[in-house]
């Protein structure tokens, strides 16, 4: 097999693996939360059961639902699948990695969010517009923070291509970068905000007035809802993989090393579960913020990321 074919196969396998793993990660996070709250919990495979149920149901659409409303879930899933294939979670050096720029990644995630918000406003319900407004407020503050967070590792490794960053950070000798530590904290805050986790949004709330993400998808049902839920789980997994790739990159296989792939996959699963448990702990310890405190939260994340960059400049020279 030619190297290009090999790499493409590797990339495809990676992406499929991520798509299949995503609901399990979400299930793990929910199960950890249940254990911490002294409940038995619905089991690790619950998200799969939910997806199966939803795929078997017929979607119910409003009269005024347009083409955008019907297609938006697939567009969102497509963007996030593309993002998943760009992030070097198991190995670097896949065929798509020259296009794997961190800034492009942020753009992809933004595209997914834009379509979802448009779809929420499409049917014209009050909750949909409210959810879309709030989501855009959070996004408007979280996206600059995410970009700033990416800048510090980019400065350290001298490139914005994701594969190059991971290679340089993983293979360089171990050094405590205070800038990276601050960027990691900022990234964690952005992760919680973007994935609709406490303290920004409660994923298990049923009170519509407190919803941000859930309010946008109130009108969806059947297979459309299934696709959206899958995309949501995949987004969480992608964010976790980004965090792992930037801040704990040891164990990611370098390009072309086929033999190390199973080990790298195992290490990745381990790190994902550790990250998921950490998120569950953070969610249990915090309370949901009032909506107009959310800008403070994200402002802190943004400025922490800026501080990380400044410190890197000062201490690196």
């Amino acid at each position: 097999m030619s190297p290009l074919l090999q790499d493409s196969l590797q990339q495809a396998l990676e992406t499929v693996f991520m798509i299949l793993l995503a609901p399990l990660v979400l299930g793990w996070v929910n199960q950890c939360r249940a254990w911490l709250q002294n409940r038995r919990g619905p089991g690790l495979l619950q998200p799969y059961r939910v997806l199966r149920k939803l795929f078997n149901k017929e979607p119910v659409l409003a009269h005024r639902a347009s083409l955008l409303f019907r297609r938006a879930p697939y567009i969102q899933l497509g963007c996030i699948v593309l993002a998943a294939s760009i992030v070097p979670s198991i190995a670097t050096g896949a065929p798509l990695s020259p296009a794997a720029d961190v800034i492009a990644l942020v753009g992809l995630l933004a595209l997914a969010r834009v379509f979802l918000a448009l779809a929420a406003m499409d049917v014209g319900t009050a909750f949909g517009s409210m959810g879309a407004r709030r989501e855009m407020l959070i996004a408007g503050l979280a996206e600059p923070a995410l970009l700033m967070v990416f800048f510090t590792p980019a400065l350290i490794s001298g490139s914005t291509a994701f594969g190059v960053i991971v290679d340089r950070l993983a293979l360089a000798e171990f050094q405590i970068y205070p800038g990276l530590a601050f960027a990691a904290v900022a990234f964690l805050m952005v992760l919680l905000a973007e994935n609709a986790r406490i303290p920004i949004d409660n994923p298990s709330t049923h009170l519509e007035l407190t919803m941000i993400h859930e309010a946008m998808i109130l009108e969806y049902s059947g297979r459309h809802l299934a696709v959206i839920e899958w995309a949501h789980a995949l987004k969480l997994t992608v964010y976790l993989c980004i965090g792992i790739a930037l801040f704990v990159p040891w164990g990611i296989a370098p390009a072309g090393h086929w033999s190390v792939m199973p080990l790298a996959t195992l290490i990745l699963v381990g790190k994902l579960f550790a990250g998921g448990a950490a998120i569950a702990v953070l969610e249990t310890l915090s309370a949901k913020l009032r909506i107009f405190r959310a800008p403070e939260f994200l402002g802190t994340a943004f400025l922490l990321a800026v501080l990380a960059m400044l410190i890197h400049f000062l201490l690196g020279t």
Partner: protein
Amino acid sequence: MPVTQQLINLCASLLLLIAFAMLTQRRLLSLINLFAMQGAVLAANTAVVAFSTGQEHLYWSAGLTIALKVIAMPLILHRLIDRLELRTDQETLINIPSTLLLGIGLVVFAFNLALPISQLAGTITRSSLGIAMASVLLSFLMLITRRKAVPQVIGFLSMENGLFLAATSATYGMPMVVELGIALDVLVGTFIFGIFFFQIRETFDSLDIHHLEKLKER
């Protein structure tokens, strides 16, 4: 960079992070705990510098810092707010995101100011001079954007922490006799602050600084 140098950089950055976090805190208990953490980080930094440069008197300095800033002063402050029964959130004069933006501006300013001096320094810790100045300025910002007395005092005390870091980073600390004098001053100052709070509370029934703005050219 050797490990000790990395640890020193990490400690200095943590100090700056804590000074930054103090700007965002509304609750009094978290402010005092952050102040205690800042003292602990400072002591750790001094100890690492002492270890890597072999300056014995810095161990004493680190011990003094722990005794004073991690144990004694937070204890005094906790007892103060217990007896004054302060529980409510402390609102700031300008909202928190603007304060943070101002803070970042001050950090950039401090880093620029410290750059020529740290290039002249011969110590291994010279890069922390900019961080020390930034912490001082951030504490000063906290001092002037708070309405109640106790956060102002904590800002004042954390400014002294930043100055201590500056001394350690530029010159491996001041001579022992001066450090003892400074420690004594800080301790006495805290006591006097405590006395003050009671007097203010007695007179105004509140620790809101706006009550203390009535003196003008009448």
